[in-house]
């Protein structure tokens, strides 16, 4: 009897719960503010989706999504211009010793951290030491730094082990933390001795910066919500976003829904063309973009048969239908010319560019040691599951290679698995389709990460080139402090690399996003639409401070759609 009563109570409760659910679901949506008079600070928000997770600790984060967060939360000594040069930022000026080993910076006085304390040279010194001690994030760019000192409150000196020509440009990746705040949040014991965990745990979800935005809420697997720092030294435009939100990329259909509901302002850069076309049909939404200095490559393993044969690689390079790639698959992009994207300072515009030419491809194939036994040597190819468009390139490449009698085995792999594969020459496939981005705005960044032997084993060099001459030339270029001379060496390196044909340089990426053009001003997007040549360093294309948001125009759109 009791059991039966229990069941009845349970059924009753579940019915009540269901009814409540139904009521909650079917009740009318919350009325949205419709008149400008009702605009609240949270309406002036810039929301965007990106890959996830996002690390906001300057000594940890280094990918696209991290960079977007970091440039908004932290200040750097210098700031990149859209043309790839840099300007003063936290530092007002700097001097370089004639031997290129000592850099002295003069800091801007009166700059405040988010907690109100002043930014001093001691903070800069601490930030660099912390970065180098932890060794993650962008630390590799500064491994040349042997010492950093703060001779007075507003002066800081860096000493390098050997000259590093692009040092000033690399500093766009050096974020300054509040020493006192980090020290107040050390977790002991930790792996860094007296420094405990060096504040790593706390900095996962908090910031200690002086940038234009400060963390309001950080949900590790969900989103970063940052709020305008009113006392930011650079000042504010009245229409700048009050809030900036970066959230994990959901499904393209969800993105479309959010854009239509005006619940996000900017999409990520990997939306498929079909989705971008659909988004453009939404009133007030437009797409815009620019060449971002990234390129897409088919990396050919130079130590594994059959791609270890230079003639075989050239045959593949000649057989790809580049025209179809840049007109049908990625219509806004441009065929790459060599390893360095065309708008990256130091690019060689005269380097040889492969075109589809089946006669030349067959000629090269005949010279290959694998000619006549192609059946025994299929080409394994991986493409990144997170970028669906790459599948089209993989299939096109497969079809093009089949015209030569070469069999290509295509595998879709999550990026994590591709990274794991790249760790050893045995597991790296013959061909890997990978996007690569420069870490500082100069050819040296790409040349180092892509072809220097020190980067073998990373996803950025699935070629396993290991060429001593290339290594030496890259090292020589990076040691050259004179920019013009350095660029000359870069140009020669590009010729050397093209001659070796370790890669099929497919295209220079046109970073295209959809955005709420009716109520958002996006500086890089507008410059791109105006046809200006721009090169935003990774992350700086979403520098929220320079955006403008007009919520009253959004209200009008919402009102019109009701």
């Amino acid at each position, binding site marked *: 009897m009791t059991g039966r009563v229990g069941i009845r109570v349970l059924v009753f409760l579940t019915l009540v719960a269901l009814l409540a659910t139904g009521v909650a679901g079917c009740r009318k949506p919350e009325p949205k503010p419709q008149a400008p008079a009702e605009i609240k600070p949270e309406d002036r928000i810039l929301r965007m989706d990106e890959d996830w997770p996002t690390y906001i600790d300057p000594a940890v984060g280094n990918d696209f999504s991290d960079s977007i967060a970091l440039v908004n939360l932290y200040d750097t000594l210098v700031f990149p211009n859209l043309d790839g040069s840099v300007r003063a930022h936290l530092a007002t000026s700097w001097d370089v010793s004639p031997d290129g080993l000592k850099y002295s910076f003069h800091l801007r006085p009166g700059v405040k951290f988010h907690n109100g304390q002043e930014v001093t040279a001691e903070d800069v010194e601490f930030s660099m030491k912390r970065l180098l001690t932890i060794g993650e994030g962008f*630390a590799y760019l500064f491994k040349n730094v042997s010492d950093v000192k703060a001779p007075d409150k507003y002066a800081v000196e860096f000493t390098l082990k050997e000259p590093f020509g692009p040092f000033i440009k690399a500093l766009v990746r050096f974020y300054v933390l509040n020493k006192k705040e980090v020290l107040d949040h050390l977790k002991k014991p930790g792996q860094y001795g007296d420094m405990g965990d060096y504040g790593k745990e706390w900095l996962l979800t908090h910031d200690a910066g002086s940038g234009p935005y400060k963390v309001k809420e950080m949900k590790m697997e969900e989103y970063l919500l940052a709020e305008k720092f009113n006392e930011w030294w650079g000042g504010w435009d009245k229409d700048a976003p009050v809030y900036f939100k970066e959230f994990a990329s959901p499904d393209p259909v969800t993105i479309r829904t959010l854009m239509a509901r005006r619940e996000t302002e900017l999409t990520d850069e990997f939306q498929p063309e079909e989705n971008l076309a659909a988004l453009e049909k939404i009133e007030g939404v437009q797409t815009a973009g620019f060449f971002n200095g990234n390129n897409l490559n088919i990396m050919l393993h130079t130590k594994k048969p059959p791609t270890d044969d230079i003639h075989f690689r050239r045959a593949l390079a000649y057989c790809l239908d580049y025209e179809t790639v840049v007109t049908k698959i990625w219509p806004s992009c441009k065929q790459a010319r060599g390893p360095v994207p065309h708008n990256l300072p130091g690019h060689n515009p005269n380097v040889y560019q492969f075109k589809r030419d089946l006669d030349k491809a067959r000629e090269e194939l005949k010279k290959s040691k694998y000619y006549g036994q192609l059946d025994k040597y299929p080409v394994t190819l991986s493409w990144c599951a997170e970028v669906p468009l790459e599948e089209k390139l993989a299939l096109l490449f497969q079809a093009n290679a089949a015209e030569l009698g070469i069999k290509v085995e295509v595998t879709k792999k999550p990026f994590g698995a591709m990274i794991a594969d790249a760790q050893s020459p045995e597991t790296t496939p013959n061909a890997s389709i990978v996007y690569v981005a420069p870490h500082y705005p100069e050819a040296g960044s790409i040349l180092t990460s892509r072809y220097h032997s020190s980067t073998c084993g990373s996803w950025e060099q699935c070629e396993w080139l290991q060429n001593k001459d290339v290594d030496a030339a890259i090292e020589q270029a990076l040691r050259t402090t004179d920019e013009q001379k350095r660029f000359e060496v870069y140009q020669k390196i590009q010729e050397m690399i093209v001659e070796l044909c370790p890669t099929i340089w497919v295209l220079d990426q046109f970073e295209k996003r959809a955005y709420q053009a009716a109520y958002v001003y996006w500086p890089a997007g507008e410059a791109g639409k105006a046809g200006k040549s721009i090169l935003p360093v990774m992350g700086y294309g979403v520098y929220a401070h320079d955006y403008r948001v007009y919520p009253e125009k959004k209200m009008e759109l919402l009102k019109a759609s009701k």
Partner: protein
Amino acid sequence: MSVGRFVVRRLALSLLVLAGLSVLIFLIARVVPGDPARLALGPRAPEWAVDNLRKEMNLDKPLEVQYYLWIKGLFRGDLGKSLLTRRPVLDDIKEFLPATCEIVLLSALVMALGGITLGLLSASYPNSWFDNVTRVVAYLGIVTPSFVWAVVFVLIFGYLWPILPAIGRLEMGVEAPPVLTGFLLLDSLIFGKYEAFWDALRHLILPSVALALGGMAQAARITRSSLMENMSKDYALAQVAYGIPWRVILLKYLLKPSLIPTVSIMALDIAALFANAFLVELVFNYPGISGYGIRAMLNKDINAITGVIMILGVIFTGINIIVDLIVAYLDPRVRLLGGNQRA
């Protein structure tokens, strides 16, 4: 067999299963190619930093020592650190598990009530238009993956007729309750945050229903066929002959035994939802344990993988024990024979 002995026996078997699972998942997580420490720190981290992380994770030790240390940690509630979120796996699980639990519980409710009711009505009016329509709808529900429903729901209720939120757990501007249990609904009620309660409930509806539809359709079909089978049994005919009203026969005498297969299968479906919810979580950008587990697998986050799988294992075995108890309640033969014979 007493209920106590029945439960103890089931618990002992479950512990064996979990011990086997721990060995299996520990080994699988480690034999997948790729160095987790290198993957976590990135290609350019210096070798000393990668070595330090390997040491911190005990990856420099022999496999059996690693397993011993891991099990030791497990009993202390230390599941290690996630390479992806860079914080203790237990903290991640505490944050993400309640979120998925909320979806799964609501799904279970929809699945049970909807499935049993539809099955009952179909069996009551066999081969009627209602039964035929339910059959078609049920087949559609079974063959359509939950993420497809999720996308369809986003399009319908998020885009064409925007009455429900499309992503997340809570709208911006809605004050979240303090975290006590991690269950937003419960915490909102405990702290009297009714606006947060309604908002969280609204966020749960689409993902929960999307997840529930497949199981609900299956439950409807199983309930119907089970009821139909029992309806033709002698005891049912005898009850009709005694003049007992059909409604009473159906609800009082036929439904209970007919629910045994439904409950058994539905419970497994519900347990499986914890692992299968990841695509729905992706579509709705919902921070749950399923999505977390999948991301861990894709990034070879070994501590998170083992932690999530063990938790899911515990949930799965726990639900199985509950199912056995429910089945024992529904069918006294199971209770009396200790589950050895289900005539």
